[in-house]
């Protein structure tokens, strides 16, 4: 038995940046077995409580070690409908892996000694996918009566739909865009989550009986009242936090200053990287600058770099962040990948003002240096700009990736739906029910920006209460 963590194979950096192919290649059977044998099978497995949907991690890893991959698959599926997605995008180092007893660091994220739970989950999920394993529907009389409308097909909506369908409820998912997946499709690039994986997991739900209706913007095309009139007995709102935040500094609306959402939507949803075969354009730039420190910032920067490379431009992408690498909320793996691919990081930098050429295109960002003071409400050390430390960074493309807030299309069309000061939907935390009877909510529209798995945790809770309540 080896004590060394098993690394997952990856595409080499120079190969990756020439396209949008998946970067992490995942475990072979042999590697998965070796990693599973590192698991101590703790009597009190802390990892499980580190998972927002409480996957029985100990059990599934034990099954992997016994080569019972199908068993492992069904163990995960009991609490998580999307192992192949979560195994790829979960920030495991802040969740299950951080709770692993092998974890040695006192950092905000786990050390490399922790079991690579996410890679094992991915291996198991992909095994199930390759072998077309299908978890049985556990129908009961009560749940089969329920007819539920799920609004939004992002992580929360898909998870809620899956939980309900597995119990035999009739579920229709409504999505405003032309294809399902929400942020998993428009936000996360192919090189982190291949479209085929997402499509498979959505099809899996369709096989469970979930119906998908795209191009329906609930709140505009149809109201919540009308959904009830059409015979839905319960509604789940998984609207996400889709509205990009901006810095609020001068020059932010200059040409080629993008929100990360716009930049990534053009590329991921509309396939702008295949322009002109696909008609949606995106500008590329010779000197791209990304503002932010989360996964979205990493995704945007890595997309920008790939676009430059594909278009024969010498890659030049910088990420600027107000704090340091330690405080960056992005997955450690994505930060590492971004560095390997040639993205430069500038820390302790606060944007001050964009400047343009005479045609209105961005040409440089004036900035200030920061220093970190004591911790703020987020628990991270607060950056404070240093007066007089002005400097500028030349750029002809800028992507703002500093966060998102609630989309109000549905809430403003539904005044009875109570929201808080952040415009998030207020729920009863015990049931996830909103201020409207029989309307439930979960995911980022409830908690503000969170992770995929956190959204799923809330959606599951809502699904349980929808079923009990039906």
């Amino acid at each position: 038995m080896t004590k060394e963590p098993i690394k997952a194979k990856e595409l080499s950096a120079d190969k990756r940046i020439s396209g949008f192919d998946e970067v992490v290649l995942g475990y072979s059977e042999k590697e998965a077995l070796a990693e599973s044998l590192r698991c101590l099978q703790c009597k009190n497995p802390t990892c499980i409580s580190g998972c927002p949907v409480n996957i029985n991690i100990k059990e599934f890893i034990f099954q992997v070690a016994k080569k019972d991959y199908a068993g492992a698959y069904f163990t995960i599926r009991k609490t998580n409908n999307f192992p192949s997605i979560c195994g790829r995008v979960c920030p495991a180092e802040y969740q299950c892996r951080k709770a692993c007893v092998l974890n040695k660091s006192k950092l905000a994220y786990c050390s490399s000694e922790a079991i690579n739970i996410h890679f094992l989950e991915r291996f198991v999920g992909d095994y199930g996918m390759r072998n077309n394993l299908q978890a049985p529907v556990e129908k009961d009389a009560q749940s089969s009566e329920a007819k539920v409308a799920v609004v939004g097909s992002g992580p929360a909506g898909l998870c809620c739909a899956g939980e309900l369908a597995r119990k035999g409820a009739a579920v229709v998912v409504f999505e405003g865009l032309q294809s399902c997946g929400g942020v998993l499709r428009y936000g996360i690039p192919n090189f982190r989550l291949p479209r085929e994986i997402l499509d498979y997991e959505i099809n899996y739900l369709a096989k469970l009986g979930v119906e998908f209706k795209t191009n329906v913007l609930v709140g505009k095309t149809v109201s919540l009242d009308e959904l009830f009139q059409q015979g839905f007995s319960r509604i789940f709102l998984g609207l996400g936090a889709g509205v990009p935040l901006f810095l609020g500094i001068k020059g932010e609306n200059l040409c080629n200053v993008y929100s990360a959402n716009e930049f990534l939507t053009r590329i991921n949803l509309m396939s702008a990287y295949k322009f002109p075969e696909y008609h949606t354009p995106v500008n590329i730039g010779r000197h791209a600058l990304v503002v932010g420190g989360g996964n979205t910032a990493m995704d945007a920067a890595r997309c920008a770099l790939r676009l430059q490379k594909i278009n024969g431009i010498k890659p030049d992408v910088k990420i600027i962040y107000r704090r340091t690498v330690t405080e960056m909320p992005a997955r450690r793996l994505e930060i590492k990948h971004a560095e390997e691919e040639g993205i430069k990081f500038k820390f302790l930098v606060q944007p001050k003002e964009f400047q343009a050429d005479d045609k209105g295109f961005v040409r440089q960002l004036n900035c200030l240096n920061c220093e970190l003071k004591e911790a703020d409400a987020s628990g991270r050390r607060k950056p404070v700009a240093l007066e007089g430390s002005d400097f500028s960074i030349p750029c002809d493309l800028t992507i703002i990736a500093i966060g998102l807030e609630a989309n109000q299309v549905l809430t403003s069309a539904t005044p009875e739906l109570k929201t808080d000061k952040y415009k998030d939907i207020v729920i009863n935390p015990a049931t996830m029910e909103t201020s409207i009877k029989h309307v439930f909510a979960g995911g980022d529209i409830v908690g503000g920006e969170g992770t995929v798995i956190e959204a799923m945790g809330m959606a599951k809770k809502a699904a349980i209460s929808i079923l009990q309540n039906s």
Partner: protein
Amino acid sequence: MSDLSKAGKIIAKELIVDHAGVRVVKLTISAPEISRKAGAGQFVVVMPSEKGERIPLTIVKADSFAQTIILIFQEVGLTTKTLGALNAGDTLYALVGPLGHATKIKNYGKVILVGGGVGIAEIYPVATSLKQAGNNITAVIGAKTKELLILEKELRDTADKIYLMTDDGSLGQKGFTTDVLEDLLKKDKYDLVYAVGPIPMMKKVSQISQSFNIKTIVSLNALMVDATGMCGCCRVTVAGKVKFSCVDGPEFEAGQVDWEELEKRNSIYLEKEKHICKLKF
């Protein structure tokens, strides 16, 4: 929601302008849900094909009885050309709406509606609704030349007064819609100006009506992607604040719009468009 399966089918197609390389197409599209909901001033997002862009188009007419909507657009880029190449019986790849806020319809009194080019199609539903609300309607419509002037008959039937303008004088008066607007505002008192057309036209309308201190609404044609408030592509500065024209608009008070910024932002993809238009369609 069974109706949704019918959405997006093209019921009828008419080429309403085909002159000197300019093609303006009118499509009647099956859209049960949208036709019931659409108010004047709202728009839909259309994808003609899987590879096409998501493009916003104003709903020119919604017929809840026939369960159809009418869209009118000029073929300018590859996506509008793809859309224009579709025929009755074809189905759009995607159609979503109605989007944006509807025009606030009430009895303002005397209203001037100014439409330029395909913008004429966008003032038509507003003119109809305002007329029904008891307003006295003056329509001022203009185009480069007489063949490009659309919906003349429809607006003539709706408006109390109509002024036709062509740049070359081939129909109506020679000159711009803004010339008439200025004359009208000098001679008489009006309660509202509503304008849709090319940005330079709307900007000029804004300047003129501000000098007469008259409330003026414009419907902006900012670039959009999702058009549901998610991407921020369509952001425009209004009264010093950043607004998303898809969900906060598309209508704004003309005098509050940062026109220079809008004009520049709408030119972001000129280079790419030149490139794509060279491709064989």
